[in-house]
């Protein structure tokens, strides 16, 4: 858990959340989550029917990996809110780095909360996720 006297607005935390994303990890996510959309595992369908260059990651896999950075930063079981927009697709071979920034620290209903913005970028500096989170602070 973040400590009130150890954080300030503007603090950031970054983590590499995946290096050279493998197709197999995308399949793993399909199996665990139950989302078997062929766009994520079926190259033939994705190229010939959907018109994309090949399979790409579930948005929710990118959100899940970004969540790993987030919970490593704010601690387990402290999240009140976590939300994202998927701004660009994530492809096999991509390497992603995710950053959290504290933008506000406030008191609400007797709790101290940190408001956080989130951005995940690929190896070319393209933003694939923007988001925000609210976490309890100790």
């Amino acid at each position, binding site marked *: 858990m973040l400590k009130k006297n150890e954080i300030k607005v503007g603090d950031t935390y970054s983590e590499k959340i995946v290096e050279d994303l493998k197709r197999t990890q995308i399949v*793993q996510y399909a199996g*665990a*989550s*139950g989302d078997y959309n062929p766009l994520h595992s079926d190259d033939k369908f994705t190229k010939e029917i959907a018109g994309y260059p090949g399979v790409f990651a579930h948005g929710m896999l990118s959100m899940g990996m970004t969540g*790993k950075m987030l919970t490593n930063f704010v601690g387990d079981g402290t999240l009140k809110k*976590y*939300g*994202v*927009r998927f701004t660009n697709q994530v492809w096999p071979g991509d390497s992603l780095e995710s950053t959290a920034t504290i933008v506000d620290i406030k008191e609400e209903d007797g709790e101290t909360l940190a408001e956080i913005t989130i951005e995940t970028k690929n190896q070319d500096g393209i933003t694939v996720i923007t988001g925000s989170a609210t976490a309890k602070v100790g």
Partner: protein
Amino acid sequence: MSKIKMPVEKSHIMMFARSIGDANPKYYEEKDENIIAPPTFIQSSAQFDPDYFLRPKIGGDNWFGSGKEATGMKSSGSGSGGGGAAMGLHAEQHYEYHQPLKVGDVISAEVKPGKSWEKESKRAGKLKFSESVTEYRNQDGELIITATSVGVVTEKPVEN
């Protein structure tokens, strides 16, 4: 009203945590009471939706992914089956956490339709957005997570 009844199980949490590459030991604890779930784990409630459209059905012959052909959909003549250029993508996902998910909980879901809107884009033509709000409750009817999902159907594949 969805028919989801999701038992929260430790092996499922373990598999989910592995799939997002998260080695946090809290996701792999031996004792049920020590386990917590990753923040996006509830998404896997799709496993427990009997009608989930992104899972091939046992004995079903209408799965739209490839077999011999690029789409397994039987041609209906309407031209609408199997996607084509208009494909649904996930645009946004938001969670509000009210209480922690616990191993042994049985979670039910109630889905409420939200707003819908349209937007023109350079990269994918006309975009049709639609929102749904899902309330996940435990076996005692207590609200655990509220999830807001925004889907988008693009006029053509997104240019990269």
